[in-house]
């Protein structure tokens, strides 16, 4: 399956040629979860702590759906 990934914060600079307007397509096996996507992109949980799929934040174990748009943000803290 295919998901479109959009990266934020300092994450885009990890991927040369990343286009912030379009994001990037990532091919994953059927049934892949949020944590599998992050592992594929080599984004650790210290770097990518908030993941939203189609406008809803997800936990690491959530299953991804084909054709989804996935936003990956840094973990947040403070107030």
């Amino acid at each position, binding site marked *: 399956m295919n998901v479109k990934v959009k990266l*934020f*914060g*300092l994450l885009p600079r990890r991927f040369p040629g990343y286009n912030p307007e379009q994001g990037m397509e990532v091919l994953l096996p059927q049934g892949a979860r*949020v*944590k599998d996507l*992050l592992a594929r992109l080599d984004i650790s*949980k*210290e*770097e*990518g*702590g*908030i*993941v*939203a799929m189609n*406008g*809803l*934040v*997800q*936990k*690491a174990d959530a299953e991804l759906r084909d054709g989804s748009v996935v*936003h990956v*943000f*840094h*973990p*947040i*803290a*403070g*107030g």
Partner: protein
Amino acid sequence: MKFLRVNMTEKSIQAEDVPQAYLGLGGRGLTSIFIDAEVTPTCDPLGPENKLIFAPGLLSGTTLINTSRISIGAKSPLTGGIKESNVGGTVSAALGRLGITAIIVEGKAPQGELYLLKIDENAEARLLPALGFKGTRTYALVETLQKDHGAKNGILCIGPAGENQLASASIQSTDVDGRPCRAAGRGGLGAVMGSKGLKALIVSQGGKHPDALADPEAFKGAAMIFAKAVKEHPFSGQLMPALGTAMLVGPINAAGAFPSFNATQGVLDGWERISGEKLAETIKARGGKSGHMGCSQCIIHCSNEFVDAQGKYVTAALEYETIWATGGMTGITDLDSIARMDFLCDDIGLDTMNTGVAIAVAMDAGYKPFGDAQAAIEMLEEIVKGTELGKAIGNGPVSVGKHFNHHRVPVAKNQSIAAYDPRGIQGMAVTYATSPMGADHTAGWVVGQNLAAFGGKLDPLSPQGQVEVSRAAQIATAAFDCTGLCQFAATAANDVPEAGQALLTLLGAKLGTALTQEDVNALGVRVIKAERAFNRKAGLTNKADRLAKFFYEEPLPPHNKTVLVSDEEMDRTFNF
């Protein structure tokens, strides 16, 4: 270790040893326990009976990094309850180095009089007449004060909003560059300062007599461990300097919890135009500054300096909450207008949150269309002119709601919410509703736990477990707010065990007693108990621990949830 008591009725100043009851307290712990003990809860917040107390944190004035927060307390003219609002800048460390534990401003100068309180490098304090500064905005004020008294002074001051005793009036603090761009914004403490007839505090940064440490060696070692952890943590070491607090615009919109168009939408269409990424990019392209140091001894540097297309200074310390209040709530997705409003709020001496939300309520009521930046800026100027509408805006969202007879007013205890909608992150509903301060995001920030993909099961759209996390966060914050440390240094203390231990050692080495985590929690509980006791006596019972009604009735798109935390659950928050 001394209190300076400044009586504005008699124009007298007295230094006294810190009374036994307040020993070992600093920051919010000192201001709140003091207000509860010494201020008549039913008094007029703008009358002579109210007291305004300035207290640097317990660790301010030491060599530890990021210890620049000063707590300011009084009975609030906005909420009618107790208030602590803290701010960074340079005054906290300066007072710490002078060995001053608190400044207490009592009484009230006769109508029409205005004063400066100057504290020199020997901790000698004087009241100076300041009638010539009547109505002066904060940028012009500090420029003159620095010319007259020297740039090596930290300044806390009010603008026209504080002099006019408006309930959204802030106390502005100078940053390390001497600009009044940092605010103790919440709760109208600027109005209390104005009511006393005090325009500014000028504090020498040349003090050389901080309180002695009980164990200087242990302190030194722990301070190094703590600084290393803050520097090495990705959040405080890399993210904050790169993006500042505005980094939150993206994730909070992605969560559908960014209150927009006066809290009728949870995603702001076009948020990418005002995101932290866009802000950093704009600042860089124009030659402004990101990763800017705002406060004394800071090694995180979350601040910034925003310049216009010509590279000319517009404002500094443009923060997430301000971008949200003046941008998201008003539907203004243009950083230049937002930066201009931030500057005007600082210059007039206004809480950007309460004021941005007040403007949004006026727009929602049909006074002007959402997205009209010119109209928003004109509303700010109305505040200075003192027109009927200006007074309504300057007194905050509730007063604007009354002015236009409009029901949708996003507040708790009369204070505007912050940049997290309680329907999109239900844990924030608990914090906003139950904090003794009124809706206050810093009082118990549970956003991270709700949105994190890893570690934790909280669902931001469900009330399940939210009371417990809010309670824990509120207790931890009440204790942390005693230290003088910036909250952005807390992440390292929470995540890195050695840093957490170092913080206990630092507090112990300052106070001369070994402290455990339980002791620190007990301090947090003690502070909240004092605050709630004061509120109860002031008439704010558990019935006041509720959000504005519309949050329970009007679902927020895109998730279409209302606040689902019941009143009974809210009342369980403080089970002590």
